[in-house]
């Protein structure tokens, strides 16, 4: 068994890969907490959070969308049998700003760190 294990490792390693893709920079989770619904202004949003990834025009407001995505991919190629797994998770903040420039809602979630490498088995 002691002899077979290194051989197996040597055999399998060349067929392994793992990659991580990061889309945009993340930001301090406390930043969005500085925004106060009903008080903070559009200028506050831009000053605190920086430029958004996207601004979505809504009926009577705008949604400022901040997003940081992490994709972790891993795989194993064994000649005719291949295994691949990818997991994409996000840090995201959405700020609703009304036509008068006042913040009307803030939603935030930080899950980018939970993206995992793995193989397509189990949970």
């Amino acid at each position, binding site marked *: 068994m002691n002899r077979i294990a290194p051989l197996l490792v040597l055999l399998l390693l060349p067929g392994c890969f793992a990659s991580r893709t990061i889309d945009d920079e993340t*930001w301090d989770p406390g930043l969005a907490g500085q925004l106060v619904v009903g008080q903070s202004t559009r200028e506050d949003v831009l000053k605190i959070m920086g430029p958004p990834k*996207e601004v979505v025009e809504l009926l009577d407001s705008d949604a400022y969308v901040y997003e940081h995505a992490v994709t972790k991919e891993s795989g194993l190629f064994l000649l005719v049998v291949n*295994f*691949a797994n990818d997991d994409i998770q996000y840090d995201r903040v959405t700020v609703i700003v009304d036509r008068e420039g006042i913040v009307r809602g803030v939603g935030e979630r930080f899950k980018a760190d939970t993206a995992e490498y793995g193989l*397509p088995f189990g949970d």
Partner: protein
Amino acid sequence: MACLRTLFALALLFAGGCVGFTFERSKDGVPEPVEDAKALVPGETTLADALAALGPPDLVLRTWNRDRCYWVCWDSDYFKFRVALWYPGVEQAASRDLFILTDGDESLRFARLDFDEEGVLRETAHVETPLDRSGEYGMIEDAIVSNYLEDRERALGVRQQPSDEKSDEKKGKNRDDGDGRGESGKNGSASVLPDSVRSRSGARRPRRG
């Protein structure tokens, strides 16, 4: 016997580039907001409440008379069998897929919330279906799922605007086509951001830590 083993090993070695079984798993997003969205009450919950309770939506857009938000979690497992033909003797390696068998299942879960102009929740829709997938587009038969895919295409700017909307734009309106599906984002960005921050690549966001 040794000859057979050698032949088997060689067959495996050569078949590797031509025949392949692939198991793939893909995970996108988290399911918690989709579950929590069931607790929201049409006529009472506001957009601000929803953002506070569920976090930011995965997709936000405007339809002709509603603001629409999606919270989405998408898991998929695939099994693929592929047979390819390699062309020898060409300058660059080339192959052609002769046969691909795909099977597996997807679990698409999302909550769709529609808000009126005052930001009050008016309509909800939930999709939580583990979808057995026997064909490439088997799941698109569901109308709500179909709507979601179209909304997503519009948000990404892939789907063209309908022709009747062009006349609206000429009139100075910036509304959707009235089919209940919206457009998103890009139209809004130019009007509300000062030049100094309009370009994402030009300005930097504060870094973590």
